[in-house]
């Protein structure tokens, strides 16, 4: 019940939370276009080809090093296996005594040395 004069008709107070919600809902409902400009893929491919042509020497060096890792590891393994198994042979020690004798003899008689 109202008495006397009508209160001044005012616009509802702006609710910022509601406004934010409404704006986001509208933005969601209206996604941007996914149109691709004409011949865009040709432009990108030209750029990509130019990237490929401009060779970076450091990159080439790094790539070569990386490629060399596997053969080097394989060579290391082969040498390790060979040194373990190869030294197992008893005749491998034959020359050691003679070498030791020659070295010790040269120390004992320095005037007879070279």
């Amino acid at each position: 019940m109202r008495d006397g004069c009508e209160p001044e008709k005012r616009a509802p107070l702006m609710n910022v939370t509601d406004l934010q919600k409404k704006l986001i809902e509208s933005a969601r409902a209206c996604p941007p276009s996914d149109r691709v400009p004409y011949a865009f893929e040709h432009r990108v491919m030209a750029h990509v080809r130019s990237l490929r042509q401009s060779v970076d020497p450091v990159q080439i060096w790094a790539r070569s090093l990386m490629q060399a890792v596997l053969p080097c590891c394989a060579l290391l393994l082969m040498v390790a296996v060979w040194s373990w198994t190869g030294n197992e042979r008893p005749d491998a020690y034959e020359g050691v005594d003679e070498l030791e004798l020659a070295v010790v003899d040269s120390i004992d008689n320095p005037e007879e040395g070279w």
Partner: protein
Amino acid sequence: MTEPRPADALESARPDVELITEVLNGNVESFEPLIQRYSPRLFATARRYARRETEVEDIVQEVWSKAFQKLGTWRGDAPFEHWLMRMAVHTCYDFLRVHQRNREDNFSDITREEEDWLERFKSEGDARQDSADAARLLVQRILSDMSPASQLIITLLEIEDKSIKEISAITGWSTPLVKVRAFRARAEMKKRLRRIMKDKYL
């Protein structure tokens, strides 16, 4: 528009893995079907962050350039599209950081349509969907005056409706950091809206 040639149709039907392996083996031409396949999504994403069409094109080209250079780092355990979209979001974020505008904009350059939208909302408490485009531009204008991190969070969380976990995976930020930034971004947006209202209606 020209009709796609049968060879092109065949190329575009090939799986991503096959095309990427060929590119990595030195056949650069196999990169083109990937560009044709994913450019529409990249353009839609870039248009959320940049307003000028030349800027949008530059962003998408930058994404493809990065994708080509880092193609060897794609492990194949996740779809190529996800890897590419993550790269796109990072490129857009870099763009926002480089092109940070003066954030003291007084919103005097609001267009007639945007003003009408606000007026309708003010008087009716609602706004018609047919003017959604004006609302979208208004949101973009408000976001462009916010910090790059806030723009990114609002776009991903509120407009693209991604979860905190997804945003964390895309941006590389921790989950608590995403939550804190989301809280700050919402507050920042409200502050900007209050300022518009104050400038326009008080």
